[in-house]
C-alpha cells in the first residue's frame, strides 16, 4: 500500500462554508493508507503548495490527494507542486469538493459527509495511479481561418503579420462578409467599404495568406498542433488562375433574373456573376442552378466571349487536404427570418424591410443606387418607422432570448442618416430599451435624438397594416405617455435579431468544439479565456462566439490571432500522457474502438503471436497513436473484451473509486 498524503483546502469560505474541512482532514487521516492529513485556507497559494512539498519529503509520500476545487482549475498547479517535490506529477489526484460538493450543498453535515466520500474515492484511485511521462508532438506552423468576414480577415492578417502561413476558407465567392453590404459604420460614420476593401486587398496580396473562396470545410481530424482538414473547393466553372475579372461574361450572360444575394434579393443578377465590384478574388462564378448551359445544354455564350479562356463547364468540386496547427472559427451571423412576424407585415409589403435591406437601399451600389426610396413604387418615403428588437430579447419562443447588441446603434445611424439627407422625413424609432455602451456610442445616439430630432418612443409596435393607398398603418403604444399611437408610415424598418450562421453547428461537430443553446460557440472560460474554445487549438473570432459590433469583432479577431501566434511559435507541444493503450493479448481486432474514436487515433496491424511456424497465430490488433489520442476513453467502453484501457483513468482505477464511494 502506498503512503498517501491528504491536503484539504478551505478555499476561503468557498469550501469551508458548507464543509467542515477539519473533520474531513481528520477522518481521511484515519484511512489505512493515509500517513499525513491536513487542511489549509488556500492550498493553491505558495504557502499551501509548500505544505504539500514539505509533507512529501518529510513523510515519504508516494501519492497525493488534494481535496479542493475542480481539477480543471488547479490540477495543473498541484501536478507541478508534487513534481517539484520529486514525485511523478500523475501520482496526484484532486477530489473536487468545491463545484461538486460545497457549492451545491447548503447543509454542512451533508456537505462534510460527501466531501469525505469524494476524498476516499480519490485515495482509492491514487493507490492505482501509475507514473506517466508526457510525450511531445510537433506543431504545424500554419493556421486555418474559417470564414472570410471582417473577423476572419483581421485574424488572418494578424497571424500573417507574425510570419505564419494562414489559409482563409470562405463559402461565398468572395471574402468580405457582412461588412461589404453595410453603407456606413457607427459611431464615426465612415464608409464601410472604404475601410474594409484595403484589408481585403491586403489579404489577397499577402504572401502568407491563401484564400479559398467558394469553399467549405468538409472534415477535420487530428488535434492541437496537428489538425488535418479537408476543404471542398466548389466548382465555380471559371478558372481562377485565368479569369481577369473583366466582367464580359457577367454582362453578356442572357440569364438576368437570378435573385441577387448581395442585395438580399431586392434586385437580380446574371447566372454568371461577380458578387460586387470590389470582390476578392475578382473572379466570376457561374451559378449552375440557373445557367442555361447547365439547365438545357444550349448557350455557352460566356465561353465564346471569354478572351482569357477561363470558362470551364466541366470543372468539378475538388477536395484539398491541408495540415494546420491551429483553427479559428469566424463563421459570423445572419439576420433571422422575419417572415413569422406576421404583425409587421414583412411578407405583405415591399416597404417593410429589414435593417440590412435598408442598409442596401442606402448604399451606392445597392438596388436603388443609394437613393432612399420605397421598393414598391420608387417614391421617397416621408415617414419612416423603425422597430427595434424584432426577435431579440424575445422570451415568447418566437425569436431569440438574447440581445443582438448591434441594433440600437445601427438604427440610430439609419435614423440620423434619413434626417440628415432628407430633412423633410419624419422618423420614429420604437424601442424596449436603448442600449449604447461603448466609446462615443451614447453621444451618437443622443445626437440622433437631440440634434436630428428623431422621435424615440419607448414601446412596441403592435401591428403594421398595409393600406390601399400604399401607406403602412402602424399601431403602437407609447409606454411613457401611456397612449396608443397610430402612424401612417411610408416605410417600416425591422431591426431583425441576428443568429449564428447555419454552418456553425456542423462545423462545431467537426471541430468537437462546444456550442450554447443558441448555436454560438462556447468559450473555454467566459471571462478569462474568451477567444479560445474548450477544444485545444480551436479559437473563436467574431459573432460566432456572441453578438458584437465591428470594433469589438476586430479586437477579438486580434486576440484570437495572438493566441494562435502563441501556439504556432512553439516547436513542440507536450502531449497528454493519459491516453489509451491496447492490450494485444486480449484484442480481437474487431475495429469497434476505431469506429468510435473521434480522433482517428487507432489503426490495426497484423501481429504474429505464433510460437509455431504454421502462421496460425497471426492476429489483427489495435495500435493507438499516442500523439493523436486525446484520452476521451470512448474506446475503453466500446471494446467488448476490455482490451482497451486509459492510462490515468484505467477501469480498475475507476472501479476502485466506485467501490470506495459505495463502501
Amino acid at each position, binding site marked *: 500500500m502506498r503512503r498517501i498524503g491528504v491536503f484539504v483546502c478551505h478555499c476561503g469560505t468557498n469550501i469551508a462554508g458548507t464543509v467542515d474541512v477539519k473533520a474531513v482532514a481528520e477522518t481521511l487521516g484515519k484511512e489505512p493508507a493515509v500517513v499525513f492529513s491536513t487542511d489549509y485556507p488556500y492550498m493553491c497559494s505558495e504557502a499551501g503548495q509548500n505544505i504539500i512539498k514539505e509533507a512529501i519529503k518529510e513523510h515519504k509520500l508516494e501519492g497525493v490527494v488534494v481535496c479542493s476545487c475542480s481539477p480543471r482549475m488547479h490540477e495543473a498547479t498541484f501536478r507541478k507542486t508534487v513534481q517539484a517535490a520529486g514525485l511523478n506529477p500523475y501520482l496526484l489526484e484532486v477530489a473536487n469538493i468545491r463545484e461538486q460538493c460545497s457549492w451545491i450543498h447548503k447543509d454542512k453535515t451533508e456537505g462534510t459527509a460527501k466531501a469525505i466520500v469524494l476524498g476516499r474515492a480519490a485515495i482509492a484511485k491514487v493507490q492505482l495511479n501509475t507514473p506517466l511521462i508526457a510525450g511531445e508532438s510537433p506543431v504545424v506552423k500554419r493556421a486555418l481561418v474559417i470564414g472570410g468576414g471582417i473577423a476572419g480577415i483581421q485574424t488572418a492578417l494578424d497571424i500573417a503579420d507574425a510570419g505564419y502561413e494562414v489559409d482563409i476558407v470562405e463559402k461565398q465567392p468572395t471574402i468580405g462578409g457582412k461588412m461589404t453590404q453595410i453603407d456606413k459604420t457607427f459611431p464615426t460614420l465612415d464608409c464601410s467599404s472604404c475601410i474594409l476593401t484595403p484589408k481585403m486587398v491586403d489579404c489577397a496580396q499577402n504572401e502568407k495568406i491563401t484564400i479559398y473562396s467558394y469553399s467549405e470545410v468538409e472534415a477535420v481530424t487530428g488535434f492541437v498542433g496537428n489538425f488535418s482538414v479537408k476543404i471542398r473547393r466548389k466548382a465555380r466553372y471559371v478558372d481562377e488562375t485565368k479569369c481577369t475579372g473583366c466582367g464580359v461574361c457577367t454582362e453578356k450572360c442572357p440569364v438576368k433574373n437570378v435573385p441577387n444575394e448581395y442585395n438580399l434579393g431586392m434586385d437580380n443578377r446574371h447566372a454568371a456573376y461577380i458578387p460586387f465590384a470590389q470582390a476578392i478574388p475578382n473572379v466570376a462564378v457561374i451559378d449552375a442552378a440557373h445557367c442555361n448551359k447547365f439547365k438545357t445544354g444550349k448557350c455557352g455564350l460566356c465561353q465564346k466571349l471569354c478572351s482569357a479562356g477561363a470558362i470551364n463547364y466541366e470543372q468539378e468540386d475538388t477536395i484539398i487536404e491541408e495540415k494546420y496547427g491551429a483553427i479559428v472559427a469566424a463563421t459570423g451571423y445572419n439576420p433571422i427570418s422575419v417572415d413569422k412576424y406576421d404583425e409587421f407585415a414583412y411578407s405583405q409589403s415591399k416597404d417593410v424591410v429589414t435593417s440590412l435591406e435598408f442598409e442596401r437601399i442606402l448604399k451606392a451600389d445597392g438596388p436603388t443606387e443609394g437613393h432612399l426610396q420605397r421598393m414598391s413604387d420608387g417614391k421617397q418615403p416621408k415617414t419612416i418607422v423603425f422597430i427595434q428588437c424584432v426577435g431579440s430579447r424575445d422570451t415568447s419562443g418566437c425569436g431569440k432570448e438574447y440581445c443582438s447588441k448591434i441594433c440600437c446603434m445601427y438604427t440610430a445611424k439609419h435614423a440620423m442618416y434619413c434626417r440628415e439627407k432628407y430633412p423633410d422625413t419624419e422618423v420614429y424609432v420604437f424601442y424596449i430599451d436603448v442600449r449604447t455602451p461603448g466609446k462615443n456610442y451614447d453621444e451618437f445616439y443622443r445626437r440622433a435624438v437631440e440634434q436630428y430630432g428623431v422621435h424615440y418612443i419607448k414601446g412596441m409596435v403592435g401591428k403594421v397594416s398595409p393600406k390601399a393607398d400604399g401607406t403602412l398603418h402602424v399601431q403602437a403604444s407609447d409606454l411613457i405617455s401611456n397612449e396608443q399611437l397610430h402612424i401612417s408610415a411610408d416605410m417600416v424598418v425591422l431591426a431583425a435579431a441576428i443568429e449564428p450562421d447555419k454552418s456553425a453547428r456542423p462545423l462545431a461537430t467537426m471541430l468537437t468544439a462546444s456550442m450554447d443553446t443558441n448555436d454560438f460557440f462556447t468559450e473555454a472560460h467566459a471571462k478569462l479565456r474568451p477567444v479560445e474554445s474548450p477544444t485545444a487549438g480551436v479559437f473563436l473570432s467574431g459573432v460566432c462566439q456572441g453578438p458584437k459590433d465591428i470594433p469589438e469583432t476586430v479586437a477579438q479577431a486580434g486576440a484570437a490571432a495572438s493566441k494562435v501566434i502563441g501556439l504556432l511559435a512553439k516547436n513542440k507541444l507536450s502531449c497528454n500522457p493519459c491516453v489509451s493503450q491496447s492490450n494485444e*493479448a*486480449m484484442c480481437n481486432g474487431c475495429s469497434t474502438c476505431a469506429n*468510435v474514436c473521434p480522433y482517428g487515433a487507432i489503426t490495426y496491424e497484423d501481429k504474429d503471436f505464433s510460437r509455431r511456424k504454421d502462421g496460425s497465430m497471426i492476429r489483427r490488433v489495435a495500435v493507438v497513436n499516442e500523439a493523436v489520442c486525446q484520452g476521451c476513453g470512448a474506446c475503453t467502453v466500446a471494446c*467488448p*473484451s*476490455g482490451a482497451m484501457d486509459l492510462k490515468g483513468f484505467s477501469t480498475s482505477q475507476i472501479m476502485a473509486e466506485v467501490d470506495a464511494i459505495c463502501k
Partner: protein
Amino acid sequence: MQEVMVKRASELMKDGTVSRVLGWKNGEFVYDPTPAVFESAEALSAFVYNDFCASNLSKYLIALSKKNGKTLVFLKPCDSYSFNQLLTEHRIDREKIYIIGLECSGKVDEAKLREAGCEGILSVKTEGEDIVVDTLYGEKTLPKADCLGERCITCKSRKVVAFDEMIGENGEVNSECGRFDQVAALEAMTPDERYEFWRGELSRCIRCNACRNICPACSCENCVFDNPKSGISQKAAADTFEENMFHIIRAFHVAGRCTDCGECSRVCPQQIPLHLLNRKFIKDMNECYGEYQAGAEAGSRAPLVNYTLDDCEPSVVYEREASK
C-alpha cells in the same frame, strides 16, 4: 439434400478449391448432429445434413480461416448473418472461406417432437408441409410448423446474405416475422412483474457457459468472464446477483453485434429464453436509431458505434419511457 451437399463438397475438395469441409456429423443421438471438420473426400462419408442440423457453423471459421488453405462451409440463412458480422469485425478472412448457402425452411426442435409423443427417434424427413418422424415405435407424421424451434417460428430471414454458391433457392427477408412480440409483452409489464419474470428465468441458470460458448458474437480472445483482472470473472453463479448479471453483461457485450441467430436459447440446457434479452436491445436500437440488422451487410456500421446527425437525443429515450 445431404447427397447433393456431399457430392459438391467432394468435387471442391478434389479439384483443390478447398482443403477441408466444415459441416455436421452424427452426434450421440440422431437429433443432436455435431459440427465437424472433414479433412478429406473420404471422410465425407460421415457427413450428415438433416432437419436437426441447427447449429450455426460461422464461429468455427474464426479458427479455421487461420489455417492454410480454404475451408468450405455450409451456411443456413441465419448463420450467414453471423458470418457477415464476423467479417465486419475482421475475425474471419473471407479469402480463406468458400461458402455454400443452403435453402432453409426451419429446423426441428427435438423437444417439440417429444411433446408430440415421439420416443426413440431414428430419423426425420421433410415432406411438403409435414415432417415424417421414424421412431422405434413406428412412423409419425406431424405438421412441420408445430415442430420448429422458436427462432424458426419467428424466422426473420430465409435469405442467405453471404455465399459463393447456393444449394436450393435463396429466400427473402421477412420483416413481418413478429420476433419482437414477446419483447413488447415484457415491456408492457410493470417493473416488478418484469423483475419477477426474469428472476424466474435466470434463477435456473447453472452457469454452464453454453450460451456464451456457442454465441458467434462472444468470440473474444479473452472473455471478460475468464479474465481475473476484469473483476467479474467467476465460473459459478455464486449468488442471485451473479445469475442476473452474467446474462445482462453478456447482452450488453453483444448489443449491436448480435444478429439474433438464437443459438443461445437453443443450447441452453435450462431453457432460459436468453434471446429475449438480445431482442430487447435490437428493438430499442431500431426504435432509437432506425432499422438495423447486424450482419445483413458485411462492413456496416452498427448504430452504437456510429454517429449521425439524425441520431436521437437521449431525451427522446426519456420521453419514450415517460409516455409509457
